C-alpha cells in the first residue's frame, strides 16, 4: 500500500523537475535568511543563481554536525522564532547538544512522511500502534505519533522504559503494530518471556517500524520470528527532520525508499568529499528541499550506505538506500582494519543458538589494539563439557577473522550480564579513548 500515490510514484523526470524547483527555492531562502549559509556560499564563490540543474548541488559546501553545535541553539533557523511551533534536539551524548526547529508546515510535512513510513510497513487506519520511541526532545516518539494519527490509527503513546508495564499493555490493549528501536524490541521479548508470555502467541502485533540504530538482516529474521510480525527498517535523523527520511517497504523488504520529493540524497567519499555514482558505498549526505524552519544543505550524516535506483516491486519510484552498515564515526579501527559492529553482529547471528546479546570491548595492550567479543551463554549453546564451549569460542573467533579480517578474543559470559537497552543499545565499549 502507498500513502501518497501521486508523489511516491512520480516518474523520474517529473520528480527531478520538482526537486530542482524546490532546491532552488531552499538555497535562495537560506542564503537570504541564515548568515551561516550566506558566509559559506560566499567563501565557496557560489550564489543561488548558480543552481541551474540538480548536479549544481555539488557546487554547494557541506554542512557537518559541528556547524550545528557552533550555531547552538537557534543560529541556523531560517524563520523568526514567532513562526517556530516546536523544537527537537539530540541528547548531546557525544558533545554539545543540537537543536532543530519546525514551523506548522514542517510539522505537517513530517506527519505526511511518517504516514508514508507507517503505510510502507502495512500499518493503516484500524491498527493500534504501540509507540515505544521516546517522547520528548528525541524526534522518535512524536514523529511516529503524528504519522500514526495522520493515517487514522489508534496510538498508545507509551514512550520508552518501564518495560514490564509495556508488556502488560501489549497483552491488555492488544496493539497490532509497534514502533521502537530493534534492540528495545528484543528487550521487550526477553521481559515478556520472563513474565511467562510467548510473544508470537500472546501478543497481537503483526507489523512494526524499527530504526534509530543500525541492525542486521539476521536480526530482522529473528525479531519477525519471535513476535510473528513483519519488520520494516526505517531511517531518519534529527538534523534532517527525524524519522521519516526513508523507509523500507513490506513488499520488497530490501532497501529503504528515500522520500526524494523532500530530501535529495547523495553518496560521497568520506575522505575526499567527491560524489560517488549510484551503487557505490560511501557517506550519505542530505539536502532538505521543503523544510522551512531548519533547512539543511548537503548535511553529512556519517552513515555509510549506497543508493539503488532500480525500480521496486512496491511501485515507489524513489531510490532506495541500502540498510545502514555503520556510521563513519561508529566505525572502529582495530589494528588498522575498519570494523563495523553490525558486521560482527551478522557473524554472530550466523552461528546456531547465539542470541543478539553481545558486546564489543576494544582496548589497547601496549601498542596493540585488542577486541573482545562478549557473548552470553544461553541454554542452546551451553554444554557441560569445557571442550564444547571452547570450540564455540574458537568458532566465533575464526568466523570473525575470516569475514572481517581482524583477530579477536571471544569471551563467554553469563546470561543477562550484558546491560539491556531501554533505547539504543550500547554495543561497543572503547576503552582506548578513555
Amino acid at each position: 500500500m502507498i500513502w501518497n500515490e501521486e508523489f511516491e510514484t512520480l516518474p523520474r523526470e517529473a520528480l527531478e523537475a520538482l526537486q530542482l524547483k524546490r532546491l532552488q527555492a531552499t538555497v535562495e531562502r537560506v542564503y537570504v535568511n541564515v548568515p551561516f549559509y550566506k558566509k559559506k556560499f560566499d567563501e565557496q564563490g557560489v550564489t543561488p543563481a548558480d543552481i541551474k540543474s540538480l548536479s549544481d548541488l555539488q557546487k554547494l559546501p557541506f554542512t557537518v554536525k559541528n556547524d550545528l553545535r557552533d550555531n547552538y541553539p537557534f543560529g541556523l533557523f531560517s524563520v523568526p522564532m514567532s513562526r517556530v511551533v516546536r523544537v527537537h534536539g539530540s541528547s548531546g551524548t557525544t558533545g554539545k547538544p543540537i537543536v532543530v526547529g519546525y514551523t506548522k508546515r514542517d510539522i505537517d510535512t513530517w506527519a505526511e512522511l511518517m504516514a508514508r513510513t507507517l503505510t510502507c510497513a502495512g500499518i493503516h487506519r484500524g491498527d493500534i500502534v504501540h509507540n515505544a520511541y521516546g517522547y520528548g526532545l528525541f524526534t522518535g516518539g512524536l514523529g511516529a505519533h503524528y504519522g500514526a494519527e495522520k493515517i487514522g490509527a489508534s496510538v498508545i503513546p507509551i514512550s520508552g522504559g518501564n518495560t514490564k508495564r509495556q508488556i502488560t499493555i501489549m497483552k491488555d490493549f492488544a496493539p497490532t503494530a509497534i514502533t521502537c528501536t530493534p534492540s528495545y524490541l528484543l528487550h521487550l521479548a526477553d521481559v515478556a518471556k520472563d513474565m511467562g508470555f510467548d510473544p508470537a502467541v500472546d501478543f497481537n502485533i503483526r507489523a512494526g517500524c524499527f530504526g534509530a540504530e543500525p541492525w542486521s538482516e539476521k536480526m530482522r529474521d529473528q525479531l519477525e520470528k519471535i513476535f510473528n510480525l513483519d519488520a520494516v527498517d526505517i531511517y531518519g535523523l534529527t538534523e534532517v527532520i527525524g524519522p521519516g527520511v526513508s523507509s523500507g517497504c513490506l513488499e520488497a523488504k530490501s532497501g529503504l525508499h528515500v522520500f526524494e520529493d523532500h530530501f535529495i540524497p547523495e553518496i560521497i567519499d568520506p575522505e575526499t568529499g567527491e560524489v560517488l555514482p549510484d551503487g557505490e558505498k560511501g557517506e550519505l549526505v542530505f539536502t532538505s528541499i521543503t523544510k522551512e524552519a531548519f533547512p539543511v544543505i548537503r548535511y553529512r550524516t556519517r552513515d555509510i550506505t549506497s543508493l539503488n535506483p532500480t525500480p521496486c516491486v512496491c511501485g515507489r519510484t524513489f531510490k532506495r538506500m541500502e540498510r545502514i552498515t555503520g556510521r563513519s564515526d561508529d566505525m572502529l579501527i582495530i589494528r588498522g582494519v575498519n570494523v563495523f559492529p553490525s558486521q560482527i553482529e551478522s557473524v554472530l547471528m550466523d552461528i546456531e543458538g547465539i542470541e543478539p546479546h553481545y558486546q564489543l570491548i576494544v582496548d589497547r595492550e601496549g601498542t596493540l589494539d585488542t577486541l573482545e567479543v562478549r557473548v552470553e551463554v544461553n541454554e542452546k549453546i551451553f554444554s557441560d563439557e569445557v571442550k564444547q564451549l571452547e570450540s564455540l569460542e574458537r568458532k566465533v573467533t575464526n568466523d570473525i577473522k575470516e569475514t572481517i579480517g581482524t583477530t579477536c578474543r571471544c569471551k563467554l559470559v553469563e546470561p543477562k550480564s550484558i546491560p539491556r537497552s531501554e533505547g539504543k543499545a550500547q554495543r561497543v565499549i572503547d576503552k582506548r579513548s578513555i
Partner: protein
Amino acid sequence: MKVEQISVFVENKSGRLSEVTRVLGNAGVNIRALSIADSSDFGILRIIVNDNDKAVEVLKANDFTVSKTEVVAIEVPDSPGGLASILDILEREGLNVEYMYAFVERSSNNALIVFRFDENDRAIQVLTSNGITIVNGSNVYSL
C-alpha cells in the same frame, strides 16, 4: 541406572560460585557431590543434589544457564588398585571417560565415583556384566 547431574555456567570472577551455592542453600537444596571444570574465562560447575527440579528452577530464576546431564555413579572398592580395576575394564572395551569425580559419602564400604562416558548405556552394560555395582539415582540423591 543413571544419575542426573546439573551443570551451571559460571564466569571466572569472584563471587559467582558463592552466588550459586547461596541460591541453592536458600532454596533448601543440598549438594551431594560437585566438581568444577574450568578454562581461563569460565567454569562449569557440575553438581549432584538432593532435589534436581528445585535446583534447576531456582538457578534459572536467578538467571543462571543450567543444563541436565546423565552420569553414572559407580561403586569402587576403597582399596589400592580399586579404581584401576574399573578403568581396566573400560579400556578393554574401548569406552572413553569424558570426566569423573568422587563422592564424599561412601556407599556401603565402597567409594562412590561419578563418571560421564561417551557412551553411558554401553558403559553400564559392560560394567554390570563385570560384576561392578552401579548405584541408582534415587539412592545417590539421598545418600
